C-alpha cells in the first residue's frame, strides 16, 4: 500500500523533472530567438506555447497515471 503511494510520488517527481527540462529548453530557445529576432516575437511565442502544450500533455498523462496509482492504493 505504502509502496504504491511512494511509486506515485516518485513518478510525479520524475514527470516534473522531465517536463521542467523540456519546457525550460523551449523557453530558453524562445527567449534566445526573440532576442535575436525581436520582430518575429509573435510567431515565436505562438510556436513556444504550442510546443509547451504538447510537452505538458505528455506530462499530464503521466500525472494522471500517478493520481490513479495513488487513488487506487490510498483511496
Amino acid at each position, binding site marked *: 500500500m505504502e509502496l504504491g503511494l511512494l511509486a506515485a510520488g516518485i513518478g510525479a517527481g520524475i514527470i516534473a523533472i522531465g517536463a521542467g527540462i523540456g519546457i525550460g529548453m523551449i523557453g530558453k530557445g524562445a527567449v534566445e530567438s526573440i532576442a535575436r529576432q525581436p520582430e518575429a516575437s*509573435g510567431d515565436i511565442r*505562438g510556436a513556444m*506555447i*504550442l510546443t509547451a*502544450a*504538447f510537452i505538458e*500533455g505528455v506530462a*499530464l498523462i503521466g500525472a494522471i497515471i500517478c493520481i490513479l496509482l495513488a487513488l487506487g492504493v490510498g*483511496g
Partner: protein
Amino acid sequence: MFRHVFVSQSLSPLKVAFVTLLVLFGSFGVGLSASATGVANASDADAAETEESSSPIDVMGKIADHDYIESPFGKVYLPRIFWVDGQFYTYSSTKKALASGDFIEKEGVIYRADETPITIDLSITSHLVYVWLGFILALLISLWAASRYRRGIGRTSAPKGALHNIYEILYLFIRDDVIQGYIPKEKAPRYTPLLFSMFMAIAFMNLFGLLPWAATATADLTVTATLAFVTFIVTQASGTKTYWGHIFNFPGVPLLVKFILTPVEILGLFTKPLALCFRLFANMLSGKIMIISILGLIFIFTELFGATVGVGSSVIWVSLTAVLYGLKVFVALLQAYIFTLLSAVFIGGALEEHHHEEHDVEHNDVKVMDPINA
C-alpha cells in the same frame, strides 16, 4: 454600488481587487469550515467514516461532482433524474429519491429498489450547473455584444466601453492569431464561430471555478472529454483526401512500413483529443487542489500544533493563496486559449489539401541524379 466603487477616483483598481479577494477568501474560509463541520457531523452519524476522513478538510469533496451546489447561503440540492431499463424517474433531490422507496443506497451506490443498477444517471449535478452557468454567461455577453453591433456601435464606430472592447479584443485575437494562423484563410470563417464559442465557454467555466464556493466544471473529465469529442468530430468531419490518405496510405513509404505506420496514425487520431481533454482537466484540477490544500494547511496546523500556530501561520498560507489565485486567473484564460489553439491546429491539419514535402524531395532527387546521369 459596485459601479460607484469602480468609478470613484480615490479607490484604485488594485485596492478594489484586494478587497474583493479578501471578501472571496473570507467566504472560502466559511465554506471550508462548513465542509469540515459537515464531515464532523457525518462522522457522528457513521463511525466507520470517521476513520476514513481523519483530515479536517475534504479535498476530494471540494473537487468532485455533487448532487448539490454550494452557495454563500448554504447547500442547494439538485434534482435527480434516473433512467433505468427504459423508464424515467425524477426526484427533486437524492433524499426524496431514497425516501420514495423506489431507490436504495448500497455502499455509496444508488440502485433501484429491485437492485437493478441505474442505466444512465441523468441527474443535474453541481458541475452541470456550472457548465450551464458558463454557457449562459458566454451567451449573455455575446448577445449583449451582438445587440450593440446591431445598433451600430462597433460596426460603424469604434467599440465603446471596457467590456465591449475586451470582447472585441478577444474575438479578434481568436480569429486572427489562433484560427487564421493555423487554418487556411479561405476556410477559417467556417470554424471561427465554433472555436470562439468554445473559447468563451471554457474561459467562463474556468473563471467560475475561481469563486471559492463554486465548482470548476472543467476540472471534471466528463466535461473536458465532451468538449474534446466535439473537436474530434469536427476534425474528422473536415478531413480532406490528403488527410485520410496520410492516415491509411502514407505516401512515399514502402508497403511494409505502411503496416506499422497506419496503426500509429490511427492511434494518433485518438491520442490528440485525449491529450486535449486531459490537459484542460488536469490543469484546472491541479489548480483547485493546490489552493484547497494550501488553505487546508491552516486547519491541519491547527489540529497538529494548536489554534495559535494554525491562525498565526495562516498569514503565510493566505498570501501564498493570493499569489496562486493570480496565477489561476492567468491559467484559466491560458488553458481556454490553448484548448482553442490546439483545436484549431488539429482542424487545420485535417484541412491540409496538399503536401509539399514529398514533391520537394522528389524534385531534389531528380535534380541530384541528373548531373550524375549526365
